[in-house]
């Protein structure tokens, strides 16, 4: 897991994403897509771990809606703001429950925030083949109680130590979500997961995130992650 943690990640990243919500109830598949731009910057010093901005461009009804998040190092509640063009106002908001769905998708805020290496206890379960890659299969058990999961089983590519699949178990130890990350491409120094699909087994629903465009280390200024920028988009 240390090798997974050592994979080089950018200081800042700007990604245009197509998020598709797929319902599979009654065997009938229906989907609806959104397009958003995610901008994130890592901080190595200070009180913030990351600052991120989400700008929605499709569907047109929510064009201009923007979400700003400052993730604190101390684990206290994130600082969050939402800009709604119809109100012309930046609203300070709070999502203290990280198990909540992120924007109606199958990803929770917790799924998207990432975990520290020392947040879990790990156990090697063996090896398995996934998407044509030989993978280590590792069980991660969270050390803290404030999580929606009792454990996760992670498939890690033996060649490049990239996560290929994660199974999420709820507090009753039932498998309820599966994240597939079948494809990665290397752009310069960094790996990018070009497609991720989170399956919610309880709801017969899934969310697919496809990367349309990605830019790394553009030297994004701090003033991008402010209320002012949120309004201007």
């Amino acid at each position, binding site marked *: 897991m240390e090798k997974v943690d050592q994979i080089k990640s950018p200081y800042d990243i700007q990604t245009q994403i197509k998020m598709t919500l797929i319902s599979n109830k009654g065997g009938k598949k229906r989907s609806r897509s959104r397009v958003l731009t995610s901008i994130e910057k890592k901080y190595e010093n200070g009180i913030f771990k990351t600052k991120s901005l989400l700008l929605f461009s499709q569907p047109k009804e929510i064009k201009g809606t923007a979400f700003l998040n400052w993730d604190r190092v101390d684990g206290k509640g994130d600082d969050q703001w939402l800009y709604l063009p119809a109100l012309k106002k930046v609203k300070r908001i709070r999502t203290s429950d990280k198990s909540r769905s992120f924007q*109606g998708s199958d990803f929770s805020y917790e799924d998207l925030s990432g975990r520290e290496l020392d947040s879990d206890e790990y156990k090697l379960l063996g090896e398995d083949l996934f998407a044509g890659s030989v993978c280590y299969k590792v069980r991660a058990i969270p050390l803290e109680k404030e999580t929606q999961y009792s454990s996760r089983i992670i498939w890690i590519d033996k060649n490049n130590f990239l996560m290929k699949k994660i199974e999420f178990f709820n507090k009753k130890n039932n498998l309820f979500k599966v994240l597939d990350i079948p494809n990665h491409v290397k752009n310069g120094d960094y790996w990018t997961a070009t497609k991720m699909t989170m399956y919610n087994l309880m709801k017969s629903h899934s969310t697919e995130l496809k990367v349309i465009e990605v830019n790394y280390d553009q030297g994004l200024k701090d003033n991008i992650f402010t209320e002012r920028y949120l309004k201007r988009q």
Partner: protein
Amino acid sequence: MKKYIFLLTIKFISAQFNYSGEINPYVMNRTSNKTQINLPYRIISLDLGYTIGNLDIKTVSALEHRNNPSEWEYDIREVYLAYYPSWGEVKVGKQIHAWGAADGNNPTDNINAYDYYYLFNSGTGKKVGAFSFSAKAYYKSFQLEGIFTPKHEVNRFPYGEKDFPLAIAEKPTIEYPVENDWEFGFRIQTTVGESDFGFSIFNGNDRTPSLLSANVNFQDNIPPVIKKLNLGYRTTTMWGLDFVTFFGDLTLRMESALFKTQTPILRLNVFKSPLDLYEYQQEINYLQSVLQIEYTTLSDMTIVMQLIGNKVFNESYDWFHTYSQELVGLPSMKFSPGMGTPFAMFSDQALLLSSSGVFMDDRLDLGGNIMMNLDEKGQMIGANIAYSPLINWKIEIGFTIFSGDKNNLENRFTLMEDFSNTRVGIIYNF
């Protein structure tokens, strides 16, 4: 010179043009007799923006349509230039501003007048753009904003609209235009711990007219007879406070505004004034507040409760004869706030409950709201369902029911009963 032209060309090439809008034809019918409520509405809204570096040019316009007889009117609701220096933002032009912590019914939000045709719209849809200059500076956790408006804007009322129950039969004559159009506002906001605090001041003229003088016939042994009421606008100063804080998953937003309103000194030429003219000098303090508690459920349904209050105190008035300046004993006139949240015209104390959510992967929008008058009998219940069969398209149906007090015909909700309606429309966003 060539270098300058080259740089200018590069600037324009790198400029960004963007647009968005909606087409929203709909019909509203009375629940009582199914007849159509024939008021103008915005059938097309269009937002255009042009960005060149740190400069934005923005316009928000709408095409207003009345179904019967068919009438069309193009309204440029906003057109302004915005400049974004490193320290903040500067905007000049016709703009809509948004102050305050609550989501609507903000007593501290008084820079723009209201459009009463759109009173039940949410957000900025119910405001009238004001020509203004505004500057906002961001410094650490502080935001400082100043606004100057050189032109007095008044509320747009549905005068003579038989389909709008609170409409005044005809547009009143304003006998005393505002002498000083200039209006100023300042707001400072800061973050303390996990809470945001804001303090604001606004000084301007009322958005609705009120009585400034009257022609009165005084005769011995009979009560005085008011022959004509003369209208103008009071000057009002507002001091506002607002804050946002969190308790677990509950968000608390509070906003309070203290208004001091007074009749302006008319400075009439006594020798040219009619002898039966009496001036009404009024000074009133009133307080408007809104307390909002909101909660988002696990299924992303947002539930909002608002408690709105309006309290008048320190009311003083005098009637005096313009020519002789002598005080006379005429009764006070009913006070109606000329600034603040428009919901004060419905009730002095009201409770609003609303919930909204998006389901079926953005296909289904559900919304509902209840407004209860806590002063006297009266309530408004509304619900809205929007279904999106195709991306950017929606079919919307909804209803609003008003119920008042059958024994009190002056009750605002009783007057609104005939406005109870169903609404069917299509929305296309582009």
